[in-house]
């Protein structure tokens, strides 16, 4: 999921206001983990994935 300017501005506004409060920041992070990783059975977000491997050269 790519980011957009409105989404980024909204996120930063949240980070710098309510997100300063510890329990809200932790809760928000749990929500992100659930939405981007746990909820999905396929196409889960993995930061250290989709790098190049030599096998890629042989794929059509």
């Amino acid at each position, binding site marked *: 999921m*790519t980011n957009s300017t409105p989404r980024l501005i909204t996120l930063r506004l949240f980070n710098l206001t309510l997100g300063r409060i510890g329990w809200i920041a932790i809760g928000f992070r749990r929500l992100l983990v659930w939405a981007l990783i746990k909820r999905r059975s396929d196409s889960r977000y993995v*930061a250290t994935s989709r790098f190049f491997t030599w096998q890629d050269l042989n794929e059509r």
Partner: protein
Amino acid sequence: MQLGGDTYGRVALETLPRILGLEDRQAGSTTEGCCDRNYWHYGIIDFPNARYQEASLLIAQAVNHDAPDNSFFQNESARRWALAAVRYWVSIQRRDGSFDEVYPFERSYVTTAFSTWAVARTCDLLDAKDADESLERAARWLCRNENADVSNQVAGAAAAVYGVGKRLQNDDLLYASAEKRDRLLATQSAQGWFPEYGGWDIGYLTICLSYLTWLATETADEDLTAASNRAADFVEQKMREDGSCDITGSSRNTQYLYPSGFARLGRMDILTRHERGVANGRVLNPSWMDDRFCAPMALDYLTTAMELSRDQQHASPDHAQAV
């Protein structure tokens, strides 16, 4: 240790897997061809930096570079990734023809210049016409804009406008490129350097030389070659035996050197020292650079290897020696 361009080719090709990891190579993805991993994968920024798309030319050159141990040579997947990068470049162009690098709606001169040159050359190498309309719009934007304080960017723009003009057989663009070239040559100092925000800078001067020597070769321009040699003389004076440069007093403090200009000029006095420095791990090379600047420098290294390999096919330069 075998020199003669081998080191440049090896370093560039070793960097390519890292650069391919920066590209979204998944067919059918909405960001297929985007080479800014911070945008398409991590999602931590809200727009893609168009400079990453210069990777298209590095991939295309690897596809065309017939060398031992080059697994990318004539590889169809790699060719497809290069073309995907070109198509993504087209998709992120501003309506006025420009591109962004640091923030949305920036209209970056350097990004428009350098990425346009790279994409035009990629299309030439891969015989693709996907980007012709966008290339013309970008070239026209470059004709309307200038960044005279920064010579390497002007050199890139002159090369880009020429590359597009030649590709599209557009005399207006060829004329505009010549005008940029004339304005740039008029700023050359008596010592041979081209100004970067008012002073000399070795790294940017060598980027400038990469574009100027390409342009000089394309146009068989003897004045441009002579000016490039004067600039190379200046670099030579600053270069130490281990291939690093004394940058004391430079205006921008860049620490790197783009070598392809010296290869085109046949300046083995500079290249032999620099290549030995790269081989010995004494000077900054593409793998030391961050993601943002890794691909353009690797591209210049591969270009250097290809230029030297071409020269060696015509002569037996004393550069190719065991050291």
